[in-house]
């Protein structure tokens, strides 16, 4: 019956995860981001992550940028989901993107020095945000900052990829793939096919 099927599939899924987990030595937060909350072992803080591609200063800057792009606010953010580890791992395996990421980080520090006499990480969070604003919004763009604009777009892309592919990211969106369905899911708004009278948005 359907219920048994679901149980069996859940078991398959857990087995697949267990088999895979052993393939990822060296990651600290990645495995933790994936674990179910309350599962045993999640409270142990892992050893410090050793970057594969970026140096320590670059890695700290990457981690800060992921945190600024998807912050921990009323829900967990990129730092909680270990996104910087994902960025480092992917760039380490992608020679085509290594140059642009490294030069992008250099550009950002030089830009920050030019604006306020300090490298990016030494600025306050508010100052960091005001450096990013013109790079992040078309309406606030300042000519001459094209390189930074392109770099931030790349950081945002890889941060979104790293965040929304963790269980934390799935929960952030209440991703329907976290559940299984016994029947073809149907629109619940039977008397409102045009969807003009929906309940108030939940976010």
């Amino acid at each position, binding site marked *: 019956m*359907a219920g048994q*099927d*679901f149980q069996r*599939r859940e078991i*398959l*899924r857990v087995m*697949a995860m267990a088999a*895979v*987990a052993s393939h*990822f030595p060296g990651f600290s937060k*990645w495995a933790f981001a*994936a674990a179910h909350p309350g599962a045993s072992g999640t409270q142990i803080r892992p050893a410090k992550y050793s970057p594969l591609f970026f140096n320590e200063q670059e890695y700290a800057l990457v981690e800060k940028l992921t945190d*600024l*792009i*998807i*912050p921990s*606010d009323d*829900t967990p953010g990129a730092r909680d989901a270990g996104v910087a580890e994902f960025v480092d791992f*992917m760039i380490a*395996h*992608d020679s085509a993107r290594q140059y642009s990421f490294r030069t992008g980080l250099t550009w950002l520090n030089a830009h920050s020095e030019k604006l306020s006499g300090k490298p990016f990480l030494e600025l306050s969070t508010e100052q960091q*945000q005001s450096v*990013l604003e013109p790079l*992040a*919004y*078309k309406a606030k763009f300042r000519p001459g900052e094209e390189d930074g604009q392109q770099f931030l777009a790349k950081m*945002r*892309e890889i941060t*979104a*990829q790293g965040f*929304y*592919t*963790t269980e934390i990211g*799935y929960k*952030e*969106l*209440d*991703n*329907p*793939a976290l*559940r*299984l*369905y016994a*029947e*073809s*899911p*149907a*629109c*619940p*708004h039977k008397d409102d*096919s*045009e*969807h*003009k009278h*929906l*309940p*108030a*948005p*939940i*976010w």
Partner: protein
Amino acid sequence: MAKQIYDVIVIGTGAGGGMAIKTLCEAGLKVCALNAGRRLDPKKDFRNHRMPWDMKFRSFGDPAKRRADDPGFVDAEWVDGVWEHEIPFTTAPGTKWMWPRCFAVGGKTNFWGRSSARFGDIDFRAASLDGYDVDWPVTYEEIAPYYSRVERMIGVSSSVQNRPSNPDGEYLPPFNFRCLDHILQKGAEKIGVPYLHDRISQLTENHEGFPACHYCGACTFGCDTGSFFSSPWRFLPKAEATKNLELRTNALAKNVLVDKNGMASGVAYIDRKTKQEIEVYGRAVVVAASCVESTRIMLNSKSRYWPNGIANSSGQLGKNLCDHLYGESAHGYLPQLLGQPSFPDFVSDNTIVWMPRWQNLKNPREEKFIRGYSVYPGGGCSEFPWYAIGAEGFGSAYKREVKRRYPTPVGFTIQAPSLRQDTNFVDIDPEVKDPYGIPVARIHFQWGENVLKMWEHSKEVCAEVIRQAGGVYEGSDDEPLMPGWSLHETGTCRMGNDPKQAVTNRFGQTHDVPNLYVCDASVFLNCTDKTTTISIMTFTLRTCEHMIEKFRRGEPLAKS
């Protein structure tokens, strides 16, 4: 030792090959089937229930291995090592072509899109209606009973729609509409465009011993329960139960062998493990390796009887290559759904609905193009929020916007048939050989004017559907996807009554070599606005019953 002679050698185990193997074995014929790759084990090879964080590269695939022409699923991490990368092909100057080939047993049916509409007389008699090209040598009336049998066999979910251009079949209950379907359907209705259930070979009820779908949405990565049709789940076990099948894996077909009269006598293949060439003999041969590969095998089957390739006295073998133009005609979002709770919109991997051909129905020339196209709408909550990459901003505002937009994205994919033209064809590259020394296929292909007019037309219509639905239109692809993307190539062994104009007759039997049959989409005259798989199975069932009848009469070599 006397050499073993099978009744039939079948090259390929996908939609056509699988159906041929099952049908022939169940009729008591001894079959030897050749498949270019290995057999998959759904338990080990299908990772459809894994989550992205269970994958080394979070399902994006190893960047170092990613190829520019990968349509997204080929080198993803969900299924590993089943797509052909070893056998190259070439393209003529100016041709762009991608050719994803699954060499695992069952071929592309392991991972296919599952849309399963019937061809109709509007397709078979298109030439009579608009004067372009020639009619198919079959009528809907004679094909329809075979469609019904295939639908009952595999299970297709849809609704009765009463549109002669998209004939109704025998269906399981359809998938339910999602919120976005109700909204878009209203928009489509306002401009007279149909927005209906797709016909999909995915079970909404238990069927023929297979469980109903469990709505995980990962069909493109294989199914662990056989809840959508695939040859390895549904056909091959039935064939094996008859004990009439010998399946040889890692067997790359090289050429069809001929006897002293130029008739088919077997197949030479390469055992990819030992790299040895092996011959296997049969009273008849079925070529079902997929359109372009079947063509390569036949063009490479040269002998003094067939200097230009077997069964090619017409010179039509390899000609008439057609393909579906794919591309995103429009995308946008539905503000009605902003901030609403998430909903499992992707449970069928986005083939729940379609907008079946509505153009040129009353009058074959009412549009600026002839024939017609269909569109697959999709959207809503997907496993990965792709729009997040293009969204601007950062911080809590960005994070909240991604969440608010989650249920709202919509997109429309066009499926438009190219028509035959002299400049689109497959031949053998005179200089390039694969690692086994077999000359490779060379593709010559350009989109024609007619299909590009459909593409432009679809952009306007789909943008208007979004607007009429109260949505926000955000853009269209500048260019259609690369030719070959649809995996629906057709036409290179086209069927026809005139042996001078066609490679096979109306039964898929080659005109020149009566014991050589073609059972894949290469026999179709073009793609139509529908997908090819269910029609491959339907025509193959008919072809095989024709062949069985000749064996029963003891005349496998008789002409029809």
